[in-house]
């Protein structure tokens, strides 16, 4: 009996050691993933600093030339990839355990009567956010263009979006806003202020949000994007005004994107197919954009 008890204890001890070893290996893999993320960010910052020091191209008319491909889909930067022996090893960071995050202190300031709707949207995002179901994010939520073509009269923005392929053609020759139907990306006109392209967009549908935390808007929204370039780095920021629902304009802070190698073309995004909503048992969600 004592021997049997000892055997059981030994098996339990072995199992415990095995479990602890596995946990330690897993922790090590996660530490490596975090280190990779840190290294990626540090390297990307260095590359951006170096790219900013390159000469800034100009058009024949003297305007700064924004033409180029500026990828934004740096996803899962910490992934440890290894393809040795025909394997596909992509060790990802483990997911968080959900739970609603506090609303950001520097988020948009809504009029008091609209705060409850923002709260509802944030809590019910998978139900009420069109982008969850592959809908267009609209301007400005789509972010910066990933490929730009510039002529003396127009700039063309191309987006490889999660929802599909999106383009915008923005006149820069003094044309005024058109009398057209409201759209997801709005009616845009651009003008140059020195080396910065300032894009004024109006005439939006009300279906989109301008930020992931339930930031809805009215059809009176006006978006001002400011885009410039230094060397091979694109700078993009946007200001959102909506006198119907916002108590003050909201600024989407400047983001920087490094130009891809000359000649890099955008790849067509895959089809977006929402497959999970039917299996969700709660509305937990994490950041989209």
């Amino acid at each position, binding site marked *: 009996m004592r021997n049997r008890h000892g055997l059981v204890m030994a098996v339990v001890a072995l199992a415990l050691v095995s479990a602890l070893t596995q946990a330690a290996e897993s922790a090590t893999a*996660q530490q490596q993933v975090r280190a990779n993320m840190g290294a990626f960010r540090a390297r990307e910052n260095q590359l951006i600093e170096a790219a900013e020091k390159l000469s800034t191209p100009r058009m024949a008319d003297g305007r700064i030339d924004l033409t180029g491909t500026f990828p*934004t889909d740096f996803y899962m930067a910490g992934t440890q990839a290894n393809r040795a022996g025909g394997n596909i090893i992509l060790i*990802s960071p483990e*997911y968080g355990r959900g739970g609603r995050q506090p609303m950001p202190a520097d988020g948009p300031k809504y009029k008091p009567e609209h705060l409850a709707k923002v709260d509802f949207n944030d809590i019910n995002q998978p139900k009420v956010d069109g982008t969850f179901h592959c809908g267009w994010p609209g301007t400005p939520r789509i972010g910066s263009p990933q490929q730009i073509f510039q002529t003396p009269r127009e700039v063309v923005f191309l987006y490889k979006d*999660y929802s599909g392929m999106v383009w915008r053609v923005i006149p820069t020759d003094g044309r005024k806003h058109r009398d057209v139907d409201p759209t997801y990306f709005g009616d845009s006109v651009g003008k140059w202020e020195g080396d910065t392209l300032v894009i004024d967009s109006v005439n939006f549908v009300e279906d989109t949000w301008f930020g992931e935390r339930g930031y809805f808007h009215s059809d009176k929204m006006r978006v001002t994007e400011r885009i410039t370039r230094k060397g091979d780095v694109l700078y993009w920021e946007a200001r959102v005004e909506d006198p119907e629902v916002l108590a003050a304009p909201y600024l989407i802070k400047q983001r920087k994107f490094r130009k891809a190698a000359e000649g890099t073309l955008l790849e067509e995004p895959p089809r*977006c197919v929402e497959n999970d909503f039917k299996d969700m048992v*709660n509305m937990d969600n994490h950041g989209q954009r």
Partner: protein
Amino acid sequence: MRPFIALAALLAFGAIATAHHSPVAVFDMDKRVTQKGTFKAVHWTNPHVNFDVEVLKDGKPMTWQFESHGVSYFTRNGIRLRDFQAKIGLGVEVLAQPAINGNPFGFVRVMKFADGTEFKMFED
């Protein structure tokens, strides 16, 4: 302090997130399920890539679907659709986090193919 990294923290430099829902909303993060069967299809879609595995239940074939990250997660790391298409028809053993609602659906962690190769997303 959250024990794991929130996905939003992984996105670098204001990049577009191909994130969708939190896995917590669909999958049991603390459970593991293992299914053995035949690798039948890969759905190369956003917001998530999905894999179909045909298994036998009570002698009858049924399909389990296993979800992974978005396409850019793979392409950024040099993995293409053809890499998974090459596995179609092979036997496979899948370790996954099962759907909470009991449907034949899981979030893939490791797939071991009958040719000796594996697709691994997490350490287990």
